[in-house]
């Protein structure tokens, strides 16, 4: 279900972060980001304070989407991984659970081979976590109804009115 609303609960979130931290350390990467296919950042690890995260997430998703279309033009379903090589920093992008994009930013301190190896070994775990997240859609709906009622809407309306004037 690639385009259902993504609802991340506390326990899953910390488990995801723990895995990303582990990946960053094991791959000797600079940072690791997890982005949904709509271009929204789910979480990140590493020093990303200098980076415009929203723009990065949006462009990563677009990059992946465009490349998937290229794949389909040559009869492939999609390319599971992408690699962009830079002078100082490079990107390794791969898809998790068919709906989430994992981006590893790494420097010359490590190698593409090591990054690929570590991503492969963590993918299984992340796939399981996201499979679990998507299984809980029923619970997610309940949680949404609990959190987002009339009070929330009224406060949101007032914030929107104040902002867009």
């Amino acid at each position: 279900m690639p385009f259902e609303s993504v609802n991340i609960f506390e326990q899953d979130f910390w488990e995801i972060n723990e895995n990303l931290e582990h990946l960053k350390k094991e791959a000797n990467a600079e940072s690791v980001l997890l982005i949904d296919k709509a271009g929204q950042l789910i979480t990140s690890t590493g020093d990303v304070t200098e980076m415009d995260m929203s723009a990065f997430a949006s462009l990563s998703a677009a990059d992946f989407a465009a490349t998937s279309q290229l794949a389909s033009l040559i009869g492939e379903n999609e390319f599971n991984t992408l690699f962009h090589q830079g002078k100082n920093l490079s990107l390794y992008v791969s898809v998790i659970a068919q709906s989430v994009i994992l981006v590893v930013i790494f420097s010359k301190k490590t190698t593409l081979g090591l990054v690929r190896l570590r991503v492969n070994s963590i993918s299984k775990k992340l796939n399981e976590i996201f499979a679990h997240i998507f299984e809980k859609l029923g619970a997610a709906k309940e949680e949404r109804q609990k959190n987002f009622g009339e009070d929330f809407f009224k406060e949101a309306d007032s914030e929107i009115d104040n902002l867009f004037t």
Partner: protein
Amino acid sequence: MSLINYASREINCKIVYYGPGLGGKTTNLKYIYSKIAPGIRGKLISLATELDRTLFFDFLPVDVGTIKGFKTRFHLYTVPGQVYYNASRKLILKGVDGIIFVADSQIERFDDNIDSMENMKLNVANIGLSTSTIPLVIQYNKRDLPNISPLDKLETVLNPQRVPYYEAVATQGVGVFDTLKACSKIVIRTLSR
């Protein structure tokens, strides 16, 4: 669709500006960018051709603020309006929470609006959604020009569903925020679905 993170207390929603080429979608985003305080909006990303026509999309993230403890953010996208960029439009619609259809009011663009609306309905159906359920707001742009179609004629053809609509002059900012406000409020109400 929307991303709700209960651990970091964040909500992200995606609103897409759709419509025929040169209708004013990017102008809407540029106006919003110019009027919102830098602290609450991100960078405006434009993947455009050298002639400033949208090639892939424009993107602008806007922080609405913290609502009941949830940091709420809208991601605003435009699609390229030119007919032959349909593959790009399909990609940008993925995960959409709300659509603002920017129609060009000029008489000579009447048919282009209809084509673009039909194209949007097809593309929305392609991702398993329907314009009868997804939040949709129509903006009739360029109302300051002399050669425009009457509003009721545009409404009859483009808005049989009777969704909210606004008249606009995006170059001057007229109607830009009204349209965005209307769509944002409907999108927020879909969070409980």
